[in-house]
């Protein structure tokens, strides 16, 4: 099968039914019986989530691909909800018996004996004619094992050829293909077929006794063939550049200063500083520093933030979320004002809102919750070079490792893997060991210039022990006040 313009949501559902239900002799009727059983103890909503997938990892070290991994995952999760109470059980077997056991466990955990009733409100279902956002092809199959090994050897060769100081290269090629089907007690049924690939490159550079590391990551919901060309060039050049720069890096300064963040992955700032705080569960539980701020100004004018699960082939994109709700482009902050939240079904029902296509789960063995997809700060008009020139004394940070946030206090942090001093409007010496911190509700208020060079980059987002693939993104930004935590 190949991606054609004509492939739509209806095709994804058909594939999911064929792969997930047919082998176990499950039918839509047997799903209805199981859902009725789940509703039996007074639940207002119930769903079944079927998932089956394959994944593969090939690893290169010391110029050799001497190890490979393959995994088959499968299972079904059964959930029943009464307002903000959820009972959940899952099984890695997908037979009718296993589903009976799971639904039985859910029933036994629900203590309320109210009369069963179906959830009211609007039924949310993906338009069967909506085009798919990514290929349904299995990325494990598009390339032979020998070709995958060749790709990794090409990475090794290119990194070493790029500079003689590169003394070690390790690279990992990951590919997975996951098919999901969600059946809800409101009659919603939806399927999604999700490819996901990633190439991770780590290099060590050495000059004399000094050693430094650099990383590059590229991927998306594409087939492996998509790696050749621009993506391969970028992952190699990024890893090599960071390692070489860090060979000469001096300790980062400490204290409050102006910071220019490069485009792309530095959007992790936005993800940590405000993204998690705009997930609806943190609002209904009042654990977010942004709770009760809807409609008010939480960022500088000119700052617009969007979570968009509909960008073709991007890592965080979904045709439907893990509750069967079609993904969407959701405006969160508009010209500095908080205008929207990311909702799953449970939070939306309690808050009287509409699910926004952000109900995600790591797997059938995890409960869905509101999560980000591809979250970015929209482009402005400034020339990135002018943004750097505007800073007298500060730092320029184009690459980061990752970050975390305490959504309750708003305190967030993230760590640069590539950073430089800015002196009198010019980028000068490279620095290492810079962790940047701030308060989520303050950081975006200090954005004073927004570049015209928006770019998205791949990330992994963790919340309550569950990880999901996402993109983060932003154009080059100037933030007037941030705490830089170096040793100098």
């Amino acid at each position, binding site marked *: 099968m190949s991606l054609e313009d004509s492939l739509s949501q209806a095709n994804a559902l058909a594939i999911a039914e064929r792969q997930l239900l047919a082998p176990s002799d499950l039918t839509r009727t047997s799903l209805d019986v199981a859902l009725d059983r789940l509703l039996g103890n007074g639940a207002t909503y119930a769903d079944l989530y079927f998932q089956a997938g394959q994944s593969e990892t090939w690893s290169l070290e010391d110029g050799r691909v001497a190890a490979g991994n393959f995994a088959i995952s499968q299972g079904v999760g059964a959930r029943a909800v009464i307002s903000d109470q959820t009972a959940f059980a899952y099984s890695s077997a997908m037979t009718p018996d296993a589903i009976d056991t799971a639904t039985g466990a859910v029933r036994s955990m629900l203590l309320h004996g109210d009369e069963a009733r179906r959830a009211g409100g609007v039924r949310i279902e993906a338009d069967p004619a909506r085009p798919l956002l990514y290929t349904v092809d299995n990325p494990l199959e598009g390339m032979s094992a020998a070709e995958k090994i060749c790709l990794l050897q090409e990475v090794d060769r290119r990194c070493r050829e790029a500079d003689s100081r590169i003394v070690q290269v390790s690279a990992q090629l990951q590919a997975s293909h996951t098919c999901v089907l969600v059946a809800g007690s409101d009659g919603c049924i939806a399927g999604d077929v999700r490819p996901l690939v990633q190439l991770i490159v780590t290099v060590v550079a050495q000059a004399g006794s000094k050693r430094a590391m650099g990383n590059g990551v590229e991927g998306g919901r594409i087939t492996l063939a998509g790696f050749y060309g621009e993506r391969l060039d970028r992952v190699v050049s990024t890893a090599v550049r960071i390692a070489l720069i860090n060979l000469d890096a001096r300790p980062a300064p400490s204290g409050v200063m102006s910071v220019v963040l490069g485009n792309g992955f530095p959007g992790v700032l936005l993800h940590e500083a405000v993204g998690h705080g705009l997930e609806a569960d943190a609002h209904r539980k009042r654990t977010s520093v942004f709770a009760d701020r809807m409609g008010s100004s939480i960022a500088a004018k000119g700052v617009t933030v969007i979570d968009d699960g509909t960008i073709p082939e991007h890592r965080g994109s979904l045709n439907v979320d893990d509750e069967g709700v079609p993904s969407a482009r959701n405006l969160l902050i508009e010209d500095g004002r908080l205008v929207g939240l990311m909702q799953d079904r449970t939070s939306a029902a309690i808050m009287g809102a509409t699910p926004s296509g952000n109900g995600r789960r790591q797997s059938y063995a995890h409960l869905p919750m509101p999560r980000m997809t591809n979250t970015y700060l929209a482009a402005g008009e400034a020339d990135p070079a002018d943004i750097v020139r505007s800073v007298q004394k500060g730092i320029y940070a184009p690459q980061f490792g990752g970050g975390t946030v*305490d959504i309750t206090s708003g305190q967030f942090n993230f760590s640069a893997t590539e950073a430089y001093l800015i002196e009198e409007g010019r980028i000068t010496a490279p620095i290492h060991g810079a962790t940047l911190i701030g308060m989520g509700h303050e950081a975006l208020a200090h954005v004073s210039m927004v570049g015209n060079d928006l770019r998205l980059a791949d990330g992994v987002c963790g919340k309550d022990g569950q990880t999901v693939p996402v993109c983060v993104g932003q154009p080059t930004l100037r933030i007037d006040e941030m*705490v830089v935590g*170096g040793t100098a």
Partner: protein
Amino acid sequence: MQGTEKGYLLNSRGDLSQIARNAANRALALGAQEVVASATEMAGIVMRARRGVFENAVREGAQFVTIRVFHRGRMGTATTAALDPDAIDLTAGRAIAIAQTVESDPDAAPADDEWLARSAPEIEMFVPSGLSAQDLGRIALEIEAGCIAEGEDAVRVGEAGAASVDACSAIAIGRDFDRSLIGSRHDLWCTALGERDGMMAQDSWSSTDRRLSQLQSAALVGATAADRARRKLGGRALTTRTCPVLFDATVAASLVHEIVRALGGHAQVRGATFLGGGIDSQALADHIDLLEDPFEPFGLASGACDGEGVVSLRRRVIAGGRVQGYFLSCLYARKLGLVPTGNADGPRNLHFTSRDRAEPLDAMLRRMGRGLWLTELIGGAVDPVSGAYSKAAAGFWIEDGEVAFPVQDITIAGDLPVMLRQIVAIGSDVHRNGAVRTGSVLIERMRVSGR
């Protein structure tokens, strides 16, 4: 094979041993030269309470089989969650196909026979609670009640939880090595939110043990979380400065994890380590020891052997600040010309101690006098090669050995090789955090960045 009791598990220990053995035998029958197979199941119940009701009730249950085969230094690994014979055959076939495709690494092979844990003793770790969802739910509600009682109106509960989980894992290597281990684990936890003058602060507390009887009381877990959240209220930044830092016992384990990573086989072989001085190099202050004890009954990281079947060792990893050994799997042990240490799955129970007299927390604070008492590490980075250390943090500013005010919105920075040599003392206030036991750790000086 002891123990017919299964706790929450669907398969008995004997069942899982048989599944692992069958998987190994199938792989050999399908043409694998050498094989390591494992079968694992975990099952339990997790209950979370909030505002007097159960927020969610989860029945956990996962099982999987992993088959790793070797062909003259070429290794293939495949995992399946489906355990039927067809799935096992497909999985073994994929592992063999990978091993036939990849390139050879002469050091990739199963454990040498003399490394295997054929006679290592059984360690007691399985004490299933037998608690129902309702029982655990009741405990979660008691935790919440304990939190609210302690916090009164300034504190509310983010989440109170109680969980009980059993897990069993069996390995089969080649034609005749079979071992299994079974354990239980019970957790109580509470996240509390303090709120004053429109500012919120969150903190949590938990109690974990393999025996239900050894857990802290539900009320105490809730009350401790409330106390920790309330004491953070009114936190403010410091100005940028250099000062001594006392890592509270609850966060000091993070320093031990950095040492473990730097002494891991992967880091040592790659040279991606800030502890690259070799065996017997002086890496820490000369009064520091790090002991690894895999055989502690009911230890959270106990085990007679690792996932490669390699026998565990009771040993000093650091003695008098000098490196005595690494954390090695078979692959990296061979690359370094050493013997594996039974750490293919990570460190066993670790004790981080000082040879000097250990003092309680209040004496440690007095000893520091003026400085930062670090109670929370929020995120940040450590460069594995240079040891450059920079983390977002929170805690309390200490004047004359007493708490002056709560501190937040700061970073602490230093160089780990220097920090580890500048450990002044380790307290007697020992806290267990997973595999690691340590008291509070006083470091002579670090850079604190603030506003």
